[in-house]
């Protein structure tokens, strides 16, 4: 697996650029020493010890470990009319806490987590199975979703994660499947009419109510995204008729409304559409005894479908290797996906050990998404985060706020989606603000300057480049650093050398080289 042009350190650096959310000097040393494959093996076994600093920060987030029901009980209090204005405001603000703490959880784990491969996988699947906390009641369900559906399953099987997402209230609400139902029968419509007529004594209102009820029915939103975004890929192997069939099969998959039970999945017989369903050239027979099984059968078909293995392999290679991944590599990874029945750890391993992974065209070929940029900058500077809110604001300015993607596609991971003139300036500002201590609640570690203490400023650029860009920097970056350093020294600010290093590091973090991984 040795590469003719990469020494061990650069090889480790390339590997960590993809299988961590940013190398640190210590991590780079470790992986250089034991080799990427061994380190990856340890990571996939989950043997990394939890970081104490992370644990300390997570325990402060009260909603972090809660279930949906517990979130509702503790954070969603009723607001009856007789409440004082102050108390009403307090309760309304309380409702925003779980989603805010969720964003903190994700960010802190990404920055401090020792399980970096897991963090990379979570980042990928959080976007693959996107839900957004500004839709419906997702903000109360996303805490459990992140923990149970994404984090606890990224080292499991794809089918398991797919099924967990399909049944989780966050997804059921986000893509409307919870309200998708068979159209009502004539008898049911008559009942509605009668009931409203008795209540209102108005024939007109009764007819109107019946008309409205008649419109109730299938909602294709989840069915379409299940095929297009979660499994087969757009227009891959399926048609509009399949979308409608999938919607019919999944009618009745909804959210538990009995407050005595866990706030999770419920199958509603009454909402389920009867009859056989043709889907993907197969027929799913009506299962009137256990209609839930129709949906289970569908998910099983999807997980085993060739299209799903191809789509997930391609997407993971695009994420971890190259925006346009090598087709043969994708085919090999898809083969591993099928053979292992979607065992995700085997799939990650297949990517990391594929000969193509270290091919020259893939080295520093990926452009960091805003989340990757911000997290890698915080990791590189060993930043102490006491308050995440300004970091979330910075991510917002870069159009990638956690759990707030506008589209069910999740955030794109290709350079094309982020590489716009103008968008860059936000990264420059973040780089400077971070080193200037201008991001409230965040400070870089003073230890990043330790190496510089005993050396002449004229040597600093070399030392800093070795630390922050160990695979080298473009000529433009080196000459800009040189120019800044020279001007500083020529202007006679030697007595303020402590002000020079932050400026140089800011330029490095905002350089073209640091935007790539």
């Amino acid at each position, binding site marked *: 697996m040795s590469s003719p042009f990469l020494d061990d350190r650069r090889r480790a650096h390339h590997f960590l650029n993809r299988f961590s959310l940013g190398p640190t000097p210590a991590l780079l040393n470790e992986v250089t020493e034991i080799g990427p494959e061994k380190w990856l093996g340890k990571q996939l076994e989950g043997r990394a010890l939890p970081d104490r600093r992370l644990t300390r920060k997570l325990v402060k987030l009260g909603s972090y470990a809660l279930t949906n029901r517990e979130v509702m009980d503790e954070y969603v209090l009723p607001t009856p009319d007789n409440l004082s204005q102050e108390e009403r405001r307090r309760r309304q603000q309380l409702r925003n806490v779980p989603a805010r703490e969720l964003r903190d959880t994700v960010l802190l784990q990404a920055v401090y987590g020792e399980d970096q491969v897991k963090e990379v996988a979570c980042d990928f699947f959080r976007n693959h199975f996107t839900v957004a906390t500004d839709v419906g009641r997702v903000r109360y369900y996303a805490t459990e979703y992140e923990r149970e559906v994404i984090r606890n399953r990224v080292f499991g099987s794809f089918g398991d994660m797919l099924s967990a997402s399909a049944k989780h209230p966050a997804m059921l609400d986000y893509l409307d499947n919870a309200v998708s139902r068979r159209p009502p029968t004539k008898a049911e419509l008559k009942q509605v009419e009668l009931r409203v007529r008795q209540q209102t004594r108005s024939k007109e209102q009764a007819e109107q109510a019946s008309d409205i009820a008649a419109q109730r029915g299938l*909602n294709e939103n989840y069915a379409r995204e299940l095929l297009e975004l979660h499994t087969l890929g757009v227009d891959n192997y399926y048609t509009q008729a399949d979308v409608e069939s999938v919607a019919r099969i999944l009618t009745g998959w909804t959210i538990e409304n009995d407050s005595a039970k866990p706030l999770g999945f419920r199958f509603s017989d009454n909402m389920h559409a009867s009859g056989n369903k043709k889907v993907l050239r197969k027929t799913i027979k009506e299962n009137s005894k256990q209609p839930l099984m129709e949906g289970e059968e569908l998910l099983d078909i999807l997980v085993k479908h060739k299209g799903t293995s191809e789509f997930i392999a391609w997407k993971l290679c695009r994420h971890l290797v190259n925006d346009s991944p090598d087709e043969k590599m994708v085919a090999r990874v898809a083969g591993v996906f099928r053979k292992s029945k979607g065992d995700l750890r085997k799939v990650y391993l297949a990517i990391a050990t594929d000969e193509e992974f270290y091919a020259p065209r893939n080295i520093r070929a990926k452009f960091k998404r805003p989340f990757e940029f911000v997290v890698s900058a915080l990791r590189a500077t060993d930043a102490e985060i006491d308050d995440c809110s300004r970091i979330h604001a910075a991510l917002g300015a870069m159009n990638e706020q956690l759990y707030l993607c506008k589209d069910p596609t999740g955030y794109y991971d290709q350079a094309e989606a982020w590489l716009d003139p103008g968008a860059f300036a936000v990264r420059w500002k973040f780089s400077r603000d971070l080193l200037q201590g201008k991001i409230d609640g965040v400070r870089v570690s003073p230890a990043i300057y330790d190496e510089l203490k005993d050396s002449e400023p004229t040597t600093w650029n070399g030392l800093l480049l070795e630390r922050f860009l160990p695979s080298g920097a*473009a000529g433009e970056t080196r000459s800009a650093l040189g120019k800044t350093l020279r001007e500083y020294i020529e202007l006679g*600010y030697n007595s303020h050398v402590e002000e020079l290093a932050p400026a140089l590091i800011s330029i490095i973090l905002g350089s073209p080289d640091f935007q790539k991984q």
Partner: protein
Amino acid sequence: MTHHSISRRRLLQTTGVSLASLPLASLNSASAACLGRSGEDKPLPALVTIFLRGGADAMNIVVPYGTKRYYDIRPTLAIPPPDSEGGALKLDKKFGLHPALADLMPFWEAEQLAPIVCVGSPHSTRSHFDAQDFMERAAPGLRTVHDGWLNRYLALSHDTRKPRRGEAEKANILRAMAMQGLLPRALRGPHAVLAVPSRRVLNDDATLAMFGPLYGNMADDGMGAAVSTAETKGGIVYETGRNTMATMKRFRAIVDDSKNSGKVRYPGGSLSDKLKDVARVVRADEGFEIAALDIGGWDTHSNQGGSEGNMANRLASLGGSLAAFMTDLGPHLENTTVMVMSEFGRTCRENGNYGTDHGHGGMMLVMGGGVEGGKVLGKWNGLEDDDLYQARDLNVTTDFRDVFSEVLRKHMNFDAPRDFFPGYKPDKIKGLMS
């Protein structure tokens, strides 16, 4: 924390830039002079596109109140006919405008607004992302086309358009911009286009000075930070940084110029603020041609509302902001066209959640001084099942590329070459643009 901080003054000295060398107003006049755009030249045509992301419900924007079945299949969502409470604003015997768009009616009356019904793509996709990509690249079904139609225009006309007297081509860097942190697909492509960052970022002189040595200096004279498209060792990422520096400078010079501020009252809000800046750039008349804006939130699967409600609130913001914008343009409205579009329309029937699902045919609104407005364009087939696409959605009777082509040809004076719309030869649309 302060131990490592550098004072703003110090930093500027460090990087060889001082604030005194950033006289934005004079930059503006200097660049204006070098562009040679005085009153003797006719101003360049400007195009503002507004994309309603999510598939806006065309039938509740341009309301077919004259089609009886509209009221049968939309029992809770239908907009009542004109002259009833919450009724549509009458356009003609068949159509009315959603009442929340009342602010646009003066432009209809002045014949500067042309709604087009049943516009869309021949491609059958009901995926937002595909439909948006196809429309913004003006290449339905062709996944090999990656540049946006507006960027194609910029790239092609950049090569062919005869430079005006005294116009320095390379300084002409703010031809197009998106009023948001990331470019919409329509503006992606080889021609560098500014995605305008927030004011907090835009006005941070210390940061821009710090990155001057790397990406070109904010304090260079008007020509210094010219756009280069050649790849360097820093590659495309480096070039994007250079373009960022250069175009932000130009944008700031224009919007900060106090001579350029208008007097019209805008309704406020994000869309309104953005359009206010666009108006300043149009009025500056410094070679600007295209602005694009996105508005999200049109994917109304549930609780869409009718005359009031979610969608009505969005429409009110859209109508109010656009009306202020067009008023603010003053005489420049003559050389400005505004297009409002969306990736598709929605199902004709409402669904069971007081909403509508992804559909097919949609609508567009075309506005401006050069528009032959005051009439509803596009063929309307009716709403019986046989009239509908797959018995559920509006048919497409006008290909969206016909509208794009017409606006380019008549308004931008640009005859699209044969492959501009790959595999398609657009039809002319009679009576849209004068």
